[in-house]
C-alpha cells in the first residue's frame, strides 16, 4: 500500500519528514519497503525555448537557446517535438536524474549546458505516461513560470512510503485510514471529507430495479450520474494516482480509483446506456461466461459473485467489470456501484482471475460507513470534474445497519498481558488518540470501536492497540517464574550425530521432497508414497522414503567440484502412507567415498570394511554390542550384489549396508541406511560394570584354508559353539585370498575368572575347535 504524503495531508496535518513518518509507522506495526520522493531529480528549472535550429552536423538534433530566467542556456536536444516557444523542463548541469548526472558537454561541436527532459527521464514509470511523454520532452502549459521548479509546478513534489501492511489492517488500505493511523501517532485530528453536490430529479428509482439474490453481498448501493464529460483528469488527481501506482485513464475512471484510494471502498462505474433497467447480484451458474474489460472470455463458476442485467452477466463482482458495459470515451450516463461482497468468495474468484487493487480490498473486508462515503464522494467529484448531473435517488440493499463495537476491559487485564504498570490516564489517552470513544468507570473501560477498525473485536485487540500507541519499549524483561522442573529432552539422535561427527563424517541436511521417479532408489519395496498437490517442480514432488538418493545428490554436487573425499551422514524423516495413516519415521543414512585416513605416505580409501566399522562403532556406542549380524543380500537393485548386506538386530532387519552398484558409480561409493524408529524399539540394557579376570589369559592362533564362499562369521560362530566358556574373545587376524580359496587366521583368547588356566586344558578345547571347523567347512588347517 502506497502512502502519498500530499494525499494524506488532505485529512491530517503532516509536518514530519517522510523517513520519520515511515519509522514512526514501523514502530506501531506498519513496516515499509521504501520511503522516498516521488520524483527524486534535483536542480530542475522551467525554461522557455527562444531559439531552435537544426544541428548542422546531425539529422535529428536541435541546437536551442533556452531562457531559464537568470540566464539563457545553449542546449542540444534530440526530441522530435522540440520547437521554438515551448515551455520545457530543463535539467541544469549537476542535476541528478535516474539516468545519471547532467554535465556540460559538447555534442558534435555544439555546446550543451543542460538537458531538456521528458517525464520518463525524471523517473516516472512509463506505464503512467502518455506516448507523447515517453517519446518526446514534456511540454509544459504556456503559462508555466520560467525559472521556477517544474516539479512543484506540476504538483509532482509528493513523497511516498511503500508499506507492507499486515493482513488484518484492511482499514489502512485508504488514505483516510492512514490519516487516522498517523493522527494517533502524532496526536492530531482527522478531517474526513464531507461530500456535497446538487442533484437532479429523474426517474432513477422507478427506471431501474435492484435485486440482490445472494448472501454473499451485504450492502449494495447504486447511484446514477448523467451527462458526464469524459476528458483528462485535473493534475492533482492524475498525480495522486501516479504516486499510488495507478495509471490515469480519463476523469471518470480516475475518479473511481481516486475514491477507492481515498476511502478504501472500490467502486465500479457502468455505462448506464449499455445496462438495461434491471441490476441483479447473484452467484453465477457454471455454464455462464463473461467477456471482462481486458477482452478475455472468462468461464464462470457457481462460486463467483456476479452483477447481471435481465439478459446476462455484466460484471464479476469485486474483481473485474464486463467488456460490454465499460466506460468509454463516448459514455454519457453512468451507474455507480458501491458494494460489499463476501471476502472469501472474492478471494477465490480473484485467485483464479486476477488480483487487483479492488479485489484485494474486498478480500480483506470493508467498512459499511465507507461504502456510503465513497458513493457520496464519487458523486461530488463527478459533478465537479466531469460536469455530471447527479440523480437524487440511490438504490440501496442492506442486510443490516452498521453497529459500533463495544468492548469492556479493565486496567488490570491490560497490565497483566503487557507486563507493564500503566495507569488509567495512560489508557484513556491511547483511546483518545485512536479516536475510540471510551467511558471510564474506576479501573474499567467501555470502549466504542469505530466500524473502520474491522481488526479490533475482543479485549486482546484493545490491548494490542494500547501496546502499539503507548509503546512497548519500556516493558521490563522479566525472567519467567514457574515451578522448577527439569526440561525433558530426547538426546538419542543428538548422540548419534555427535558420534558420527567424531568419527570423521560431515552432517548434511537435504530436502524431504524428491523427484517422484527417484522414490524407489534404495527403496525397492516402495510403500505408498505421499506427494504434494501441484508441486512447484518435478524435482520436489514426493516425500522421500529413503535418504540415500539425497546423499548421492550431495556426492554428485561435490564430485562435480573435484571434491572426492566425501563421508557424510544425515538423520532425517522418511514418509509413507499405510492404509489411511500418514507415517513418518526417522532414518540414518551414511555415504562414504574417497580417503578416510590421510597423511604422509598414508592414504586409506574407504572400503566396505570402513563403513561397516563406522556402523559397528555406532551400534556398539548405542549399546547393541554383539547383538547385530550382517547378512549377505543381493536384491537391492542399486547395490553391488556381492558387497552388500542387511543389518539384523535380534532377528529384525533394521537397514542395509553396501557398495553402490558400479553401473551407477564407477568410483567406490559405499552407503548404508538404518531405520532409527525400528532401532529405537529394540531395548538396550543400562550400562553396567563387569569385572575382568585377574588371572592371566592364553592366546592361540589358528589358520585355515577355506572355499571362497565360506563366511568368516559362520566360522566364528562354529568356533564359539565348539569351545567352552573360557573362550573370551575371537578375532579375525588375517584374510588372504588365493585363486579358488582363501585363508583365514583367528586369534582365540582363553581366560577364566577364578583361576589360571592350564596349557593342557586350553589345548584340548583348541584341538576340538580345529577338528570341528575343518570338518564343518571342509577346511584345511594351515601350519603356523
Amino acid at each position, binding site marked *: 500500500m502506497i502512502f502519498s504524503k500530499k494525499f494524506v495531508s488532505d485529512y491530517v496535518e503532516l509536518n514530519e519528514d517522510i523517513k520519520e513518518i515511515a519509522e514512526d509507522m514501523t514502530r506501531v506495526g506498519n*513496516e515499509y519497503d521504501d520511503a522516498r520522493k516521488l520524483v527524486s531529480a534535483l536542480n530542475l528549472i522551467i525554461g522557455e525555448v527562444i531559439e531552435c535550429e537544426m544541428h548542422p552536423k546531425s539529422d535529428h538534433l536541435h541546437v536551442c537557446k533556452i531562457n531559464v530566467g537568470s540566464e539563457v542556456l545553449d542546449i542540444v536536444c534530440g526530441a522530435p517535438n522540440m520547437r521554438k516557444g515551448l515551455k520545457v523542463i530543463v535539467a541544469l548541469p549537476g542535476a541528478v536524474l535516474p539516468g545519471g548526472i547532467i554535465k556540460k558537454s559538447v555534442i558534435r561541436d555544439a555546446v550543451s549546458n543542460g538537458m531538456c527532459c521528458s517525464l520518463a527521464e525524471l523517473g516516472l514509470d512509463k506505464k503512467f505516461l502518455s506516448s507523447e511523454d515517453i517519446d518526446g520532452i514534456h511540454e509544459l502549459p504556456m503559462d508555466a513560470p520560467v525559472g521556477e521548479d517544474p516539479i512543484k509546478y506540476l504538483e509532482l513534489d509528493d513523497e511516498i512510503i511503500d508499506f507492507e501492511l*499486515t*493482513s*488484518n*489492517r484492511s482499514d489502512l488500505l485508504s488514505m483516510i485510514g492512514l490519516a487516522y493511523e498517523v493522527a494517533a501517532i502524532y496526536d492530531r485530528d482527522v478531517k474526513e471529507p464531507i461530500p456535497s453536490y446538487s442533484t437532479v430529479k429523474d426517474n432513477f428509482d422507478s427506471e431501474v430495479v435492484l435485486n440482490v439474490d445472494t448472501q454473499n453481498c451485504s450492502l449494495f448501493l447504486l447511484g446514477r450520474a448523467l451527462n458526464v464529460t469524459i476528458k483528462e483528469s485535473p493534475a492533482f488527481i492524475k498525480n495522486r494516482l501516479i504516486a499510488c501506482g495507478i495509471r490515469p485513464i480519463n476523469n471518470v475512471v480516475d475518479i473511481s480509483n481516486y475514491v477507492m484510494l481515498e476511502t478504501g471502498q472500490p467502486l465500479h462505474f457502468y455505462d448506464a446506456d449499455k445496462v438495461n433497467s434491471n441490476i441483479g447480484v447473484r452467484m453465477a451458474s457454471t455454464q455462464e461466461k463473461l467477456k471482462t474489460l481486458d477482452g478475455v472470455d472468462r468461464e464462470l463458476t457457481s462460486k463467483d459473485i456476479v452483477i447481471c442485467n435481465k439478459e446476462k452477466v455484466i460484471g464479476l463482482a469485486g474483481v473485474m467489470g464486463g467488456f460490454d458495459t465499460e466506460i468509454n470515451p463516448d459514455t454519457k450516463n453512468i451507474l455507480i456501484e458501491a458494494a460489499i461482497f463476501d*471476502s*472469501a468468495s472474492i*478471494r477465490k474468484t480473484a485467485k483464479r482471475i486476477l488480483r487487483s487493487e479492488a479485489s484485494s480490498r474486498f*478480500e480483506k473486508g470493508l467498512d459499511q460507513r465507507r461504502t456510503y462515503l465513497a458513493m457520496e464522494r464519487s458523486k461530488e467529484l463527478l459533478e465537479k470534474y466531469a460536469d455530471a448531473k447527479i440523480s437524487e435517488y440511490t438504490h440501496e440493499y442492506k442486510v443490516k445497519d452498521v453497529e459500533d463495537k463495544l468492548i469492556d476491559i479493565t486496567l488490570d487485564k491490560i497490565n*497483566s*498481558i*503487557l*507486563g507493564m504498570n500503566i495507569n488509567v490516564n495512560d489508557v484513556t489517552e491511547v483511546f483518545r488518540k485512536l479516536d475510540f470513544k471510551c467511558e471510564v468507570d474506576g479501573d474499567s473501560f467501555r470502549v466504542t470501536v469505530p466500524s473502520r477498525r474491522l481488526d479490533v473485536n*475482543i479485549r*486482546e485487540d484493545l*490491548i*494490542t492497540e494500547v*501496546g*502499539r500507541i503507548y509503546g*512497548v519499549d519500556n*516493558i521490563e*524483561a*522479566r*525472567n*519467567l*517464574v*514457574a*515451578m*522448577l522442573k*527439569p*526440561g*525433558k*529432552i530426547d538426546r538419542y539422535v543428538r548422540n548419534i*550425530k555427535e558420534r558420527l*561427527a567424531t568419527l*570423521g563424517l*560431515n*552432517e548434511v*541436511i537435504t*530436502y*524431504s*521432497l524428491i523427484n517422484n521417479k527417484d522414490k524407489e532408489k534404495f527403496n525397492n519395496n516402495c510403500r505408498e508414497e*505421499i506427494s504434494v*498437490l501441484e*508441486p512447484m517442480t518435478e524435482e520436489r514432488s514426493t*516425500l522421500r522414503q529413503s535418504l540415500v538418493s539425497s546423499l548421492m545428490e*550431495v556426492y554428485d554436487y*561435490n564430485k562435480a567440484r573435484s*571434491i572426492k*573425499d*566425501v*563421508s557424510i551422514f544425515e538423520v532425517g524423516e522418511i*514418509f509413507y502412507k499405510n492404509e489411511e495413516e*500418514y507415517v*513418518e519415521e526417522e532414518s540414518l543414512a551414511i555415504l562414504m567415498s574417497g580417503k578416510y*585416513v*590421510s*597423511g*604422509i605416505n*598414508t592414504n586409506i580409501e574407504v572400503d566396505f570394511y570402513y563403513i561397516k566399522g563406522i556402523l559397528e562403532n555406532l551400534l556398539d556406542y548405542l549399546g547393541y554390542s554383539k547383538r547385530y549380524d550382517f547378512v549377505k543380500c543381493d536384491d537391492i537393485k542399486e547395490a553391488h550384489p556381492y558387497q552388500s548386506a542387511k543389518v539384523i538386530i535380534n532377528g529384525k532387519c533394521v537397514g542395509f549396508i553396501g557398495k553402490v552398484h558400479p553401473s551407477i558409480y564407477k568410483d567406490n561409493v559405499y552407503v548404508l541406511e538404518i531405520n532409527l524408529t525400528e532401532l529405537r524399539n529394540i531395548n538396550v540394557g543400562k550400562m553396567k560394570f563387569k569385572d575382568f579376570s585377574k588371572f592371566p589369559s592364553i592366546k592361540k592362533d589358528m589358520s585355515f584354508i577355506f572355499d571362497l564362499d565360506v563366511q568368516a562369521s559362520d566360522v566364528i560362530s562354529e568356533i564359539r559353539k565348539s569351545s567352552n566358556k573360557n573362550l573370551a574373545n575371537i578375532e579375525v587376524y588375517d584374510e588372504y585370498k588365493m585363486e579358488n580359496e582363501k585363508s583365514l587366521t583367528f586369534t582365540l583368547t582363553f581366560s577364566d575368572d577364578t583361576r589360571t588356566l592350564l596349557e593342557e586344558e586350553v589345548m584340548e578345547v583348541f584341538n576340538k575347535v580345529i577338528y570341528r571347523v575343518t570338518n564343518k567347512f571342509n577346511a584345511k588347517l594351515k601350519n603356523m
Partner: protein
Amino acid sequence: MKEKLDSILLNAKEEILKSNNEVEMNVVKSKFMGKSSEFTEIMKGIGSLSPEEKKSVGVLTNDFRNSFNSMFDERLKNIKQEVLNKKLESEKIDISLPSKSVKVGSLHPLTHIRYILEDLFVSMGYDVVTGPQVETDMNCFERLNIPKDHPARDMQDTFYITSEMLLRSQTSSVQVRAMLNNKEKTPIRMVCPGKVYRRDNDDATHSHQFMQMEGLVVDKNISLADLKGTLLEMARCLLGKNTNIRFRPSYFGFTEPSYEVDVSCFKCGGKGCALCKNIGWIEILGSGMVHPNVLRMCGYDPDVYTGFAFGVGLERLAMFKYGITDLRGFYTNDMRFLNNFNRKDVE
C-alpha cells in the same frame, strides 16, 4: 705399597677415560680388577702379612677399590648416555610435516544452532518436543485461529497433500498438539525445533524447506514481560551478552498482541551499518501472547491461563551468527561449506 697402588690407580684412570664403549670398559675392568690383575695379586698377598700390616694394607686396598669403582661407574654412565643420545638423534623427525589423521567430521550449522537453543531452553525448564511434518490443516491453521480463506494464509503458501493434509508451514502446529495432548491442562513450557515447508522458490533468502523452532509457555499470569525476558536470554545466548531486543507490533493470527522481535545489530552494536541497513536493528523472529481463541480451541480457559509463543527461523539465526550470506548453502552441502563447522564454538 701406597705408591704402588696410587700408580696403578693413575694408569687405570687413564685407561678408563680412554675407553669409548662398554666392551672397552669391560677390558679395562678385567685388566685392573680381574683374576690376573696386579691388584688381585696384592690382595692375595695380604694373607701372609702381619696383623698390623694387614690392617694398613686393608685400608689402602679398600680405598683403591672404591676409587676405581667410582671412576669406572662414572665413565660407564657417561658412555651409556652418549649411546642413548646418539640413538635419540638418529630418531630425529620433521615435526612440521602434516599429521596422519582420520577425516574431521562436522555437525551441520543448523544442528549447531538447534543444539545451542535446545540446551538453553532445557536449562530453563522447557521440554523439547517434536511433531509430525505431515500435518492436518486443523492443527496447522484452524486451531491456530487461521480459518480457511483467512488473509493470513496468504503469507504462507502451503504445500497441500490433500484438502485436509499438508506439509506444515510452521512449527506452531506443535503448540496445538502440546496443548491438546496435555489432558490435565497443566502449565506448559516447551520448544519444538523442526523442518517446515512453504511454496517459495529457492534463492539467497528463500527456501521451500527450512528449520524453525517454536516456543510456547502457558501458565497463570504470563505476560509480555516474561516473553521479553525469555527472548532476551535467547538473543544473548546466541549473539552475545550485549545484545538488546525490541518489540515491533505485528499480526500473526494465533497471537494477540503480536510482535516482530528485532535484535540490536551485533555487527555495529546498533550504530547503523550495511548489515542492519543503517537501522541498528535486525528482525529475527515473530512472537506474541497466545490468542484466547487458540487457548480455548486447545482446551485451556483463557480467563485462567495466558501464554506466550514465538517462532524463529534457524537459518536466519545461523546466517547472522556465522556470517553466511546465501540460504541455499545450507542445503547444497558443499564440503567446503560444511567444514567451517568442524569445531566447538566458544561459549
